[in-house]
C-alpha cells in the first residue's frame, strides 16, 4: 500500500510545528521516498580528499543508499561517480578503497573507463557497430554525479539537478568546517587513525537528532560518565587527571551547563551546540601546540580559533562534526530501522601527535561498538524504534522551548536545551522531501 508517494500533502502532514508523526522513523515507504527525493535534493557528504591523494585513488561510499565512488582523476581533480558499470550494473570496485591505475575495468566483461567515468574501451567492439550504441546510456560510461564541491578537502555531492547551490545550501554553517581546518597550523586536515563502524538497529534521523539533544547525557550516560565520575573520586588526592576522565566526565555536566552553552540555528537544518562553551572546553593544553598556532596565525587569531568550542555541528542531512577534536560522524541510512554509523578522525597537519591521540581516544571511548558511552545511546535508539510501533500515540514530541515565530529565523543562538534544532531539521526534511515532487 502506498500512502505517501507523490502525495505532497501527506508528507507535509507528517511534520507539525511541535511534533512529528512516527512514520518518519518507521515507515519503509517514507524511507524509500527519502532515498528518492530528500537525499538526491541535498548536498550530501561523500568523503575527504586526503582519502584519495594520488591519481587513480578511489573510495567507495553511499549517497543515501546509492553506491558512489570518490575518485582522484588524472588531472588532479576529485570526481564522484555512480559505482555501477553502465553495461549490466556490476559494482566496479571490489574493495572499499584502492588505486585503479589509469582506468577502471569492470570485472564482468572488461569494459573500461577513464577516472572521470568516460568510456575508454569495450572488448569485441565490432559487435556494437550499426546498433545505435553511440546513443545509448552505456556509451557515456560510468555516470558522474554532476554536482560536486570540494570545500577545503571535504567533498559533497548533489545527485539531482534541481535544488539549492552549494553556498545557498550551507551558508554560514561552513564556519564550523573552517574552524576545524584552521586548527591545523597549515590549515590542512588528513584522514587518519582508521574508521570506526557501528551498526544501529534504528532510523538514521534518531542519531542526527541526538547530536543536538542536550537533555539526555546526564540521564542516559549516568551509567558510563556517572561511573567515571564516581570511580575517579576514589583516586588518591593529587593524582593527575587522565585524558580518558577529561573526555568522559563532562557528559555528566548538569542541565544548567547545557542550557548556558547555547545552540546556534542556521538555514536548511544545520546548526551547532556549544555557542559559548562545551564538553570540550576544559581539555589540558597539548605541549607545543599553541606556540605553533601563534607562529602560524599570530596570537590573537590563534586564540580566536582555539577559543571556539563548538560541541556538535550538524550538517543536514546526515553528518556531524566536532571541530575541537577533529571528528566526523556519518550516519548512513540502510533501511527505515537500520543505520551504519561511521566515525572518521582527522589529523591536524603539522600539529603535535598528542592531538590525534586524544581524537582517537575520544572516538574509541564514545563512538565504538565496544564503547560504554555508545552502548547507552544505542539502547535508547533501539527502544524508541520498537516503542514507536505502539498505537497508543502516533506522535513524537519536539516541543521544548517552542516559539511560534521561530520558523523564519536563522543564525540565532538559543537556550542550549531547546529542541529548536530538531524542529528545524524537520522543516528542512519536508522542504527537501517535497522539492520537485
Amino acid at each position, binding site marked *: 500500500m502506498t500512502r505517501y508517494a507523490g502525495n505532497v500533502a501527506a508528507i507535509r502532514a507528517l511534520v507539525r510545528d511541535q511534533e512529528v508523526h512516527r512514520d518518519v522513523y518507521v515507515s519503509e515507504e517514507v524511507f524509500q521516498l527519502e532515498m528518492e527525493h530528500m537525499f538526491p535534493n541535498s548536498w550530501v557528504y561523500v568523503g575527504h580528499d586526503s582519502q584519495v591523494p594520488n591519481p587513480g585513488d578511489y573510495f567507495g561510499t553511499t549517497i543515501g543508499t546509492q553506491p558512489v565512488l570518490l575518485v582522484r582523476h588524472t588531472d588532479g581533480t576529485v570526481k564522484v561517480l555512480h559505482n555501477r558499470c553502465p553495461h549490466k550494473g556490476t559494482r566496479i570496485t571490489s574493495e572499499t578503497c584502492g588505486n585503479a591505475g589509469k582506468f577502471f575495468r569492470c570485472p564482468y566483461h572488461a569494459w573500461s573507463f577513464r577516472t572521470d567515468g568516460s568510456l575508454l574501451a569495450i572488448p569485441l567492439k565490432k559487435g556494437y557497430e550499426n546498433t545505435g550504441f553511440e546513443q545509448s546510456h552505456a556509451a557515456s560510461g560510468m555516470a558522474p554525479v554532476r554536482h560536486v564541491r570540494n570545500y577545503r578537502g571535504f567533498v559533497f555531492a548533489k545527485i539531482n539537478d534541481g535544488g539549492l547551490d552549494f553556498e545557498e545550501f550551507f551558508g554560514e554553517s561552513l564556519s564550523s568546517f573552517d574552524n576545524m581546518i584552521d586548527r591545523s597550523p597549515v590549515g590542512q586536515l588528513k584522514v587518519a587513525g582508521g574508521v570506526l563502524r557501528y551498526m544501529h538497529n534504528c532510523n538514521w534521523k534518531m542519531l542526527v537528532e541526538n547530536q543536538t539533544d542536550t537533555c539526555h547525557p546526564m540521564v542516559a550516560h549516568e*551509567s558510563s560518565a556517572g561511573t567515571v565520575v564516581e570511580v575517579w573520586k576514589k583516586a588518591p588526592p593529587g593524582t593527575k587527571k587522565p585524558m580518558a576522565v577529561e573526555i568522559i566526565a563532562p557528559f555528566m555536566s548538569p542541565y544548567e551547563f547545557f542550557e548556558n552553552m547555547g545552540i546556534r540555528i542556521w538555514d536548511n537544518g544545520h546548526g551547532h551546540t556549544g555557542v559559548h562553551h562545551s564538553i570540550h572546553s576544559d581539555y589540558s593544553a597539548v605541549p607545543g601546540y599553541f606556540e605553533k598556532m601563534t607562529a602560524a596565525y599570530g596570537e590573537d587569531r590563534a586564540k580566536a580559533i582555539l577559543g571556539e568550542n563548538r560541541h556538535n555541528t550538524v550538517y543536514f542531512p546526515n553528518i556531524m562534526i566536532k571541530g575541537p577534536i577533529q571528528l566526523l560522524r556519518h550516519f548512513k541510512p540502510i533501511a527505515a530501522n537500520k543505520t551504519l554509523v561511521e566515525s572518521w578522525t582527522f589529523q591536524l597537519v603539522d600539529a603535535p601527535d598528542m592531538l590525534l591521540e586524544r581524537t582517537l581516544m575520544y572516538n574509541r571511548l564514545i563512538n565504538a561498538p565496544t564503547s560504554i558511552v555508545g552502548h547507552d545511546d544505542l539502547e535508547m535508539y533501539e527502544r524508541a524504534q520498537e516503542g514507536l510501533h505502539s498505537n497508543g500515540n502516533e506522535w513524537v514530541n519536539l516541543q521544548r522551548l517552542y516559539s511560534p515565530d521561530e520558523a523564519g529565523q536563522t543564525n540565532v543562538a538559543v537556550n542550549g536545551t531547546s529542541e529548536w534544532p530538531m524542529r528545524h531539521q524537520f522543516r528542512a526534511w519536508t522542504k527537501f522531501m517535497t522539492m520537485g515532487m
Partner: protein
Amino acid sequence: MSMLAEAPLKNATPTDQELIDFVVREARLIDQQRFDEWLDLYANDAFYWMPLEWNQTDPRLTCSLMYEDKLLLSIRVERLKGARTFSQKPKSRCHHVLQTPQVDSRDPTANSYVTWTPMHYIETRMDEQTLFAAWATHHLSVENGRLKIKLKRVDLINCDAAFGNIQLFM
C-alpha cells in the same frame, strides 16, 4: 589447580600448565561474571587491547575497539553493577570456547610469558546471540608469587566489520 580459587605458583617460575590454567581461568571468570576477581588478574599497569585493524601495531595513533588501562576496565566493571545501566537491563551473558593455549615464549629473566589462544566468544542479550572468532594473546608476569596479566590482546577475525553493541569482555 582448582578452577574456583586462584592458587599461588608452586615455584618461582610458572610451568606451561600453570600458564595454560591461568588463561583458561580468566575466561571462566568472565563467563561466570565474576568481574571483580577477573580484574584482580590484571597488573596495575596492565592494558586490554582489541585492535580495529588487521595486524595493528600501534594502539596510540591508530584507533582500536578497546585500549584500556586498569582504571577504564574498573569503570566498566563498576558500570555493569549500576542501577541505571540501561543497556544491561536485562544483562548480557557470554561464553568462551578456547583452544588449548599455546605458550609462545617464556623468559624468566625478563619475567615475561606469552600465550596464544584461538577462541570463539558468544555474547547474548535478550533474543540476540552473536558469535565472534578471535585470537587472545596474553602477556603475563609473576608478581608476589602469582601470575598477572600485563597485556591482553584480542584480535577479532573481523576486527574491521560493523558491529552492534559488544558489551562484555572477550
